[in-house]
Every structure is written in C-alpha cells, then in structure tokens.
C-alpha cells in the first residue's frame, strides 16, 4: 500500500509540473486565458512539448533501469548500444548528401537500428550475450561512429555541425505531431513490456546464475530487454535527438528513494522522470528566452548536483 501513496504523490507532482509547463514560457499565460481561442496555438505547442517530455523521460529512464539490471552495471544507459552515435552519424550523412529535413528522423532511426545490429552481433558468441562484450562493443562502435561524425563535420563544415549539435544535445521542440504520435506507440508498449519483466529483472540483478536457479530463462530475457530498450531509444532519438543523463540519473535517484525492487521502481521512475523532463524543458526554453538551451545541457547541469546530494544523503542514512 506504500506504493500507492508514492504513486499518488508522484502523480500529483506530475500534474503540477504539467500545469507549470503550460502556463510558463517565453510569455506567461494564466491557465484560464490559455483556453481562450487566441492562445490556442501556444497551448497546442506547449502541450506537445509536455507530451514529448513525458514520453522521453519515462522511456529513457525505464530503458536505463532495465539495462542496468540485466548488466548489473550502474553505468549502463539507454544509449549503451551505440544508438546515439549511430543516429547522429546517419543524421549528419543525411545533411551532407542533402536529404530533405522531413526524412531526417527516419535516417536517425535507421542509423540507431544499424548500430544496435552491429553491436549486438559483435557481442554475441555461441548464441550467448556476455555483459562485458556488449558494453565493450557498444563503446567501440560509439567511438568509431563519433569519429566518423567529426570527420564529416570537418569536411563539410557548418551545416553538418549545426545538425550534429542538435542530435547530440537534444530538443523537445516537436516539429511534427504525427511523428510524435507514431513514436508514442513503440515507447509506451516497450515500457509496458519491461514492466511485465519486473520480477525477472529483480532476479537477474542478483546475477545470471542466481536467476536461472530461480527458474528464469536469463538468456532469452536479456535478448528481449536489449531489443526493447534499443527500440525505445531509437524511436525517441527520432523526435528529440540524444538527451543524456535522464536514463542514468533518474533510475539511481529513485533506487535511493524507493529501493531496487523493479515492481516499485519502474512505475515510480516513470512518473519521476516525466516530472524531471518537464521541468528541464521548462528551464531550457525560459532561462535565456527567446534563446533555447539544448535540453541535454539542462539535464546534466540540474541532474548531476541533485544526484550527488542524494548519493551523499543516502550513504548517511544507511
């Protein structure tokens, strides 16, 4: 029953964050006025950003939780499989060969998927995915793709540079609400499937052998989780580029607050990450308005200190 209270508190926080996200902006508009006809456009824009924030926050945080559990590595994050550099590279290539902006998300998605396929196959040995190989392959592919990005940028200059920055630091500016809608399905579905595996994730976080001794088919579950997290991060990259720290920091914060039991951790983190993203997005568009700070910068600057404080406090309690 304590879970219910936690969820209610977090849900109220989410509602509050949504309201603040709606009324604050380059211009502050009271809630009542937002519903008037002449602010309809602004309301729509802000609403789309909030939906994107909720989707991105929960998607990245839950993927982070799942990967951290199956790899038993606190540094695992949703872009572990090289999705970020894969998407970035594809986007830069698209700019260089002059593909229309409309196809940019598709290019990024394909780039992300390609990098996952490469990393997964590099890590697989005799049908088994070893944790270390997966992490190392991810790192190697990221390095190779990132250097290719820099290579292209140094050849083709400014235009590619601008595009790269957008991908590497992310934005919740929604260009196309249909795309947002399209991405919503795989992300929500992915989060739900990960939640279905909450019990298995608990067991696997004790070690692969222990999980097998508890009757869990560890190898299959690992593969399913890798596939789902990859799908989530590749889909999210399409709409918002790469937003760091969310998948790393929010799960850790929530583990300190609610413990490592995934049945509790996943739903609470989902809500907390949504709140976190809405507030970060609010800061990114209001701090130096009308200039928008890339949201990845905000998540890092806000996230890191909050995390350090929690870590120190958590240590003192236990």
């Amino acid at each position, binding site marked *: 029953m304590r879970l219910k209270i936690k969820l209610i508190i977090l849900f109220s926080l989410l509602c509050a964050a949504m309201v603040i996200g709606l009324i604050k902006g380059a211009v502050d508009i009271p809630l009542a006025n937002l519903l008037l006809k002449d602010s309809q456009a602004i309301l729509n824009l802000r609403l789309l950003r909030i939906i994107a924030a909720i989707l991105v926050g929960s998607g990245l945080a839950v993927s982070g939780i799942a990967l951290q*559990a199956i790899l*038993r590595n*606190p540094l695992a994050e949703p872009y572990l499989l090289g999705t970020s550099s894969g998407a970035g590279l594809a986007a830069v290539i698209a700019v260089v060969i002059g593909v229309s902006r409309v196809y940019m998300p598709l290019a990024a998605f394909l780039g992300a998927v390609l990098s996952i396929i490469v990393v997964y196959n590099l890590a697989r040995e005799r049908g088994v995915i070893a944790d270390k190989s997966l992490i190392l392959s991810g790192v190697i592919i990221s390095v190779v793709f990132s250097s290719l990005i820099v290579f292209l940028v140094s050849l083709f200059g400014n235009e590619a540079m601008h595009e790269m920055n957008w991908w590497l630091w992310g934005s919740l500016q929604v260009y196309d609400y249909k795309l947002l809608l399209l991405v919503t399905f795989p992300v929500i579905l992915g989060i739900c499937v990960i*939640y*279905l*595996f*909450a*019990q*298995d994730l*608990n*067991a696997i*976080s*004790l*070690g692969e*052998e*222990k999980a*097998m*001794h*508890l*009757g*869990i*088919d560890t190898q299959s579950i690992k593969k399913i989780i890798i596939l789902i997290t990859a799908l989530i991060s590749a889909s999210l990259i399409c709409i918002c580029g790469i937003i760091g720290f969310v998948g790393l920091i929010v799960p850790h914060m929530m*583990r300190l607050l609610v*413990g*490592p*039991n995934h*049945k509790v951790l996943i739903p609470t983190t989902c809500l907390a990450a949504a709140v976190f993203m809405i507030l970060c997005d609010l800061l990114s568009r209001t701090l130096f308005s009308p200039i928008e700070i890339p949201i990845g910068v905000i998540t890092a600057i806000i996230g890191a200190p909050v995390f350090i404080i929690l870590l120190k406090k958590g240590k003192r309690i*236990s």
Partner: protein
Amino acid sequence: MKALLKVENLYGGYYKEDVVRGVSLNVNPGDFLVAIGPNGSGKTTLLRLLTRVLPLRKGEIFYKDRNIGQMNLKEFCRCVAFASQDIPAGFSFTVMELVLMGRIPHLKRLQYETRRDIEIAYEKLALTDILALKDKRIDELSAGERQRVVIAQALAQEPELLFLDEPTAHLDIGHQVQILDLLKKLNRENNLTIVMILHDLNLASAYSNRIVLLDQGMILKEGRPEEVLTYQNIEKVYKTIVLVNDNPVTGKPNIVLVPGDKS
C-alpha cells in the same frame, strides 16, 4: 530406496573441454551428501550441470524418473534449489525482498506474491533465525547473516532437494558450525535432501551421511565418511600426507594435517 536424483554417465564443462568426465551418482531422499575434492576437480561444475546452469555434453540426469532437461525450468526450480556462496550486494534489496524472490518459481509473470507466499517467507526467515533482520538491506549484513539469507531464499522455493556450493566459505568456525547445524536440522526435521560442496574435510565428516570424493572430474570414491576419508584416499587425491583418527565426540573420522617442514 528409490533415488531422488539419478545421474548417469555425465560429461560436461566449458567450451571444448569437459571438466566433469563420466560421473554416475544416486542421491537418495533424506541424504546429506557432501562432495569433496581438490581445486579444479569439478565439484562446482558438477553442481552447475546438476542445476541446469550448464548444458550437458553427454549423459542424463533424472529427477524422480523424469529427465531434468525436459522439465519446465520453473517447475524444476520448485523441486530443486541452489544456495550460492554469497549474494551480490550491488543492488541493495531488503532481506524480505530477497527471500520473497525465492517464491518466483511458484509465481506467474507479473503475479504479485500472495498472502501465502509472504507467510512462507516469514516461516523461512524464522527457520533460519533472521526474522529480526527482515527489513535490513543486504549490504548492511555480515557474511554469516548473508549466508542465512541465501539459504532462506532457497528454502522459500520449497525444494525437496537443496544444493549448496561451499556455504561456509566466508565464515568463521562459529558461524560455520551454526550454518551446518541449521542444515542438519532441516535435513532431519523437514526431510530436506541436501547435496553440498565443502572444502573442510572435518566438517564434511561430521555432518554428512555420504561423501563423494572427486578427482579430475571423476568420482574416485563414494560412501560413508569412514569409507571415503582414509589417509590413502586423501593422500592420493590431495597429494598431502594426513593423519586420520576418530573424533572422540562424534566417532567420525578426524583429519589432522601434517606440516611438510617439521623443523
């Protein structure tokens, strides 16, 4: 007596090399069987083969006449549990959460633990004498307490057969005896069949009813402690000279080490 676990001509190991080479063994209901042998003799590999962590290369294992490879993994884990040397403290689960995980083989996906599962967890916490620790986090516990959590978790699976891999490895002598006394009690009173690896030959002698001596992946000798723990067998396998006399209290063989350099 009908065997609980029947192992026939088992081969298996890692990559191309077999570590276990031709082991046949019967585990009878109510056994307290201890596997001994030098490092690298295949004890742990044998346990991993018997608990389906490693695939067999050759041979067959039957649990109550059923081939274990054909049993559903969760079903298998409702009959057979495994307690490891330690529990990783990376994720700080509470003791209660960990013991409840022992109920996973009995649960469906996403099914929450029922009142009965929680009752069973409480029962196992009490049985292993860690009820007072139930809300503590695993990283706050001592090695002896953690070992009890490992055992309580395995017991929550309600197995008929419990495997243990050196449950006393990280413990001082006081805690070693406590843990083994607990297992002996479970063996006698709850009719739990136990198969475990031990390095300490005297503990193996004092607690087991049967000992299996492994050497180079094969069973060199199997039988009652006094049959297996002879100085000839020990010298042959461990390449160490020992004295074997009777423990004045238990009447079981007592192994005394003889230092090589007597000056």
